[in-house]
């Protein structure tokens, strides 16, 4: 599994969201709701599957309801992924 640096979670999420929306990562507003950006429920689940594969974690389908924006989702991932070298 990859061992992303903490600040790369934002990039990872934006990259995947942008791919699903068919836009450039820079064009995705990190503070906008994913559903408001146009992601349907099938795409949200596919996004979660891709993020799970990238990070080696399990994500509940409710993850996006609880963390509806790219920024909040990245923050959530940071909290659930065990990043080597950053443990206190």
């Amino acid at each position, binding site marked *: 599994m990859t061992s992303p640096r903490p600040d790369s979670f934002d990039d990872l999420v934006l990259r995947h969201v942008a*791919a699903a*929306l068919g836009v*450039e990562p820079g064009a995705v507003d990190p503070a906008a709701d994913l*559903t408001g950006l*146009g*992601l*349907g429920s099938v795409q949200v*689940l*596919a996004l979660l599957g891709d993020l799970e594969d990238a990070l080696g974690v*399990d994500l509940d389908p409710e993850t996006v309801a609880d963390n509806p924006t790219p920024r909040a989702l990245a923050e959530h991932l940071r909290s659930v992924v065990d990043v080597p070298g950053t443990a206190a």
Partner: protein
Amino acid sequence: MGARPDHLTLLDLVRGHARDRGDHAAVVVVPEAGERRTLTYAELDARAAALAADLVARHEPGDRALVLYSATESFVVALVGCFAAGLVPVPSPLPGGQAYQRERVRGMLADCDAAAVLVDPTAAAETQEWARPLRRADGRPVAVTVLDAATATATSTTDAVAAPTRHDHRPAPQDAAFLQYTSGSTSRPKGVVVTHANVLHHHDAFTTALGLTPDDVFCSWLPGYHDFGLVGMLLVPLGLGATAVMVSSTSFLKRPVRWLSAMTQTRATVTASPNFGYDQCTRRVRDDQLADLDLSRLRWALNGAEPVDAAVLEAFTRRFEPVGFRGSAHGPGYGLAEATLTATYPDRSRPLVVTVDDAALRDGRLVVLDEESGLSAVPGEQVVPVAPDAGPQDAAADAGAGLGTARTGTRLVCCGVPHGVELRLVDERGETVPDGTVGEVWLRGGAVASGYWGASGAEATAETFGATAADGTGPWLRTGDLGALHDGQLVVTGRIKELLLVAGRNLYPYDLERELRALHAGAEGRPGAVFEAEGLPGALCAVQEFRPTPGARESGGDELDDAVRRMASHLASVSGAAVHDVVLVRPGQVPRTTSGKIQRGRARDLLGRGDLAELHSLRASRGRARTDHAGTRP
């Protein structure tokens, strides 16, 4: 099967399997993580009996019980437990986190005045909280029963638990077996009342037509509140004494390979999915995931609940033939919840795909130009005559290039022959149309349900279930679906309500949508909706999900311009109608029902209100360009 006594129900069959093959797996659950779990017929019968004893102690016979779906054995225990208690199970999705989901489940609960809600322990807390304020019509609270897998008993929020003695209830064939709520794209949900007699009548037709046996292994990701998942992939295997393998739909949608892995591990012989599930596999299963798959035991890959696309079947075969999938396993059928599930079944002795003349189809006639019996996995081997416009490259090249004059064909997937129902295709006067003529599909027979639930459904029941044919026969079920018979097989061509009547022609939105998405790589495989423009009869609008070429930001404007014009050009030349607008929207913007059906009326409303995230539109491109002719070739 013909010798079965008339008074039996599915419950008797399940109890018989518990007696005769009690150690055989009834249900196998493939969880997202961890070990597979198996429930044998003996265990299923015992747990259902314990639950029934609990339910009988607190509910009246005939009470409705909302059974919330989780892809666990407890869902199946709940169904059989309700049968054994004389309760009517109402399969339902979990209320969920979103307001509209909760509203939908609350609407079902209120419509059938459910006395109880049965739920798996994994969703107990949120369900109890959701149900607390709910009241029945007479003001009583709705009881929540948590189905406890560990202790094999049910724990309820109210009352004392009765001694778990077997309550030997015997439902009568004419009793309601379950209520099946339909997605109902435009109207509010209606609950189809499916009787025990309907279930067994359908069961006999389904198993006979497809040659199924107790040794078959069914595997599905379809949720158990969907008729295809409930009847086809749970009740049919249970009635047979076969094994039903459950994969959660969430698990499948996250990673489609999980469905195929589950089939590999459980040596599945029968599966089912709407068209889009096969498409998801073809698109999202990675090369490195193929090595662990073996689909060689699959006898039937059933396909229904939405229009079946020949190109999707072919692509699936091509992708998975190397891991043992046989193209002959594709089994497209036709059915609806109002007929329990399936009305027409695949028949391998007849053609799978027909290529029909476009111009004739627009006049309501099926003129077959070519037949294909099996779908070849080898590209280029299939024979496709007469300027087909199905392939993306061909379509792109042909767009606007004389499509109005050339004799062009459309490939339609045949949906098989009727079993267990009588099928007629009728015109608007109820006259049976000749073979090869498009008419509305009417059905009658033992698998046709008795109607919709309750007083609220009475009007819809009369309208849908009470049709009388021109020859005086009836009642017939009017399906609202259009099709024609070819060589005894039903070929579905569209829906009555979605039929576009423009420029004196009958146009099927499905066809136009399929053609449009083949015009550009950014639209390929993505949903779109074609409808008549609001307030402009005879003028067409298209809304198409679109993904611009990644990295092509500089030229993005040109790409989008090119795409909308190609689509407008195609629409205009094929339909002969004015094209009011073609709007490209971000993926996920075209509204669909939970089962994936395109909601064209809603798409029109959203467009009218400006509520779609537009990438580009024909009207915008008109503003940028020098020419403003929709039908002009790019």
